[in-house]
């Protein structure tokens, strides 16, 4: 792979993570984005390209639109460090992005839709 002359990435570098294995490149996420921050991948069927990461406002619309849930919203590092919770009993500290993750809490939201 070549070494290229590339400008600094601005702002949060990665706002969305795509699961390349399952993404079918349908581009529904590209089209639902209110701020049009992505473009389709020139290669058909591949995950889209986030072109304007700093214009993303983290609404999560793309995540909800994805038919196979192949997108994760990536909380920027600065924010990951401020989302801290503790276990009331043990006092152990956790956060988004922690090294040894807890098992997910699978309780669904309260709604009937």
């Amino acid at each position, binding site marked *: 792979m070549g070494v290229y002359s*590339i400008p600094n990435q601005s702002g949060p570098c990665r706002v969305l993570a795509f699961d390349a294995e399952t993404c079918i490149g349908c581009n529904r996420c590209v089209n639902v*984005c209110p701020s049009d921050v992505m473009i389709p991948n020139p290669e058909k069927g591949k995950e889209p390209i986030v072109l304007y990461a*700093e214009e993303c406002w983290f609404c999560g619309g793309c995540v909800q639109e994805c038919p196979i849930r192949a997108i994760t919203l990536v909380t920027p590092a600065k924010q990951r460090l*401020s989302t801290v919770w*503790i276990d009331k*009993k043990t006092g152990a500290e956790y956060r988004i992005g922690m090294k040894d993750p807890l098992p997910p*809490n699978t309780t669904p939201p309260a709604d009937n839709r």
Partner: protein
Amino acid sequence: MNWHEYVNATGKVPEWPYPVRYEKENIVTSDVLIIGGGVAGCRAAISARQRGARVVVADRGFTKRSGSGGAGVDHWHGAVRNPCSKVTPRMYSEAAMATTDGYTNGLVRYIVGKEGWDTLLETEQMGVQIRDETDEFKGSMFRDEETKLLFAYDLENKHCLRIYGANIKPCVDREMRRVGCDVYERICVTSLLTEGGKKGARVIGATGVHDRTGEFYIFKAKSVIVSTGKTQRLWCFAPELRESQSMYNLDQSGMGHTIGWRAGAEFVLMEMTGPVELTGTGYAPYSTGNNNNTYQGVSVVDKNGKVVKYADAYGNLIDTEEGIFKPSQEGSFFIGWGIALDHERMPAHRINLTDPNLWEKVRAGEYEQPFYTDMTSLSKTSRDIIWRLMLAHEGKCRVPIYEQFTAWGFDPKKHLLQFPVGDYSLWSIDCAWANPQSGPANWRAGNGGYLIDWRLRTTLPGLFVAGDGPIASQGCHGESQTAGRYAGRQAAIFARDIDAIEPDPEQIAAEKARCYMPTKAKGDIGWKELNYAVARIMQDYCGEYKTEHTLDMGIRRMKDLLETEGKRMYVSNPHELARALESLSLCELGVAYMEGAKARKASNKVLGFYRYDYPEDTEEWHKLVAIKQTAADAVASRGLAVDYHLQAPYAPDLEDNYQRYSESDR
């Protein structure tokens, strides 16, 4: 993947994926044109269509998710006519006027009071859950057993509802398309077209540029509604820093204001500004421990588990969970939170919040940081209603908060969520729910909007407004959707009784030349750099304290920026062109804000408006000041009573006016 990864992996720069056809004209004709397809615009479209109008919506984004309301809602305000409410539309409007000393929109608050509940019932028909259908919260103090409605803030008066609104925008969007509105997406509207191309004349359409193809759109309509949402980017602009903390998206450029200002409409409250959260240094909204708004009712404990009490606005501490949701003043009601009402003036209407002496107590060693939001100690229903209902449905919460936190194992039954550490003054704005950290006093957010009548019509014939932003000093779902629904009706009635007028070719040609200049000029200024410069001028010359002389300097600087750097912009593709047009429009809007500030020759605390050269707040200046651009490009201003909506030519009573102008079906 992001762009850098793609380039590193392939060694190729991706070509712009859409055909680029700068200047290609598209003509779109309708009875009613709606500029901005947020919740207000979509509701306007639906109601205009239901009145038989041919409706076109032009939206900057994609209407399924665009706008402030695109990512959900948990509190529905203003539905005071729900069957459980003890608040009347009159009480609601009068309380709003009282808390702001009249510097709000008494008439819109009344309309919202009258029709907010009907609007919500229609929203339910569109597919949004507004009741505890599965009886999950049966027996909870938040629930009315008969209607299964769930209430927030004030359980005595029951007018603000908790709703399951994560999918509200997709539902409203689907209904808009179902009833047959034509939606044009990715259009950045750049100007209004007026009869004969003249300032101050009837509005007969608009122009726009497509954010993917760069094509030019000419919209012709008999009446037009502006519903473009709030204005950001004017004082406070830092996209590289703001990350997920933002309550605002970059599409909120205030273009809906600028196009009206340029067309000669009158504006009010342009001098009313408030502090902003400091973009780039805060937290993601709702991601840190707090006990306000969506989290209201949680328990708060300190490092040692010591409970922090809630207090009413008078500082009286509250001992019970029920007490948090009750006004302490006999016969009063809480208006609600986050709907642009100044509770300092009318504490009786303010919700119950944290003990105001908490930070004194920290300094005295009575409490130790950090504080935590503690949902473990709540009953199951109280915990679920906050975490699984409110946090799962509030704007920008379903994915970034609820799904993200639970994916990482957060469990409100076991875990305490940490507050930011630091002095209260660091995050005095709205108590840590909305990305706190107050900005410096010269970073402001404006509250100005169009001067409107009882039909939500502006001072330009054929031009109506709805929603957050274009309607001055407003801001919530219930209001935006209700005002949208009302304005749609009014615009359809206007269009029914009037002929279409062909736009002036010269006006179109001039706008076209302006819009495509950045594609031709061999420029060296990008859209962001221009926007940063705009923000610098606003911070320096239109901060908290102002004088005639420095405002004049600011206006000069802004016009200079527009004429110099503004003529040297570069763009790489249509997306950047649309952003550049927004940045250019901010120059004009900045001037409008400074003209508004110049027109008020007195300081005013409620307006957050301070002049060194006119430090007094005099009775003579207790009025609205309306400003506009005249045909000769001068600025004219005049005073209006704050309750102009109850003065001639209107009736002196709210209900009489509503009956006279609303054309309601009910």
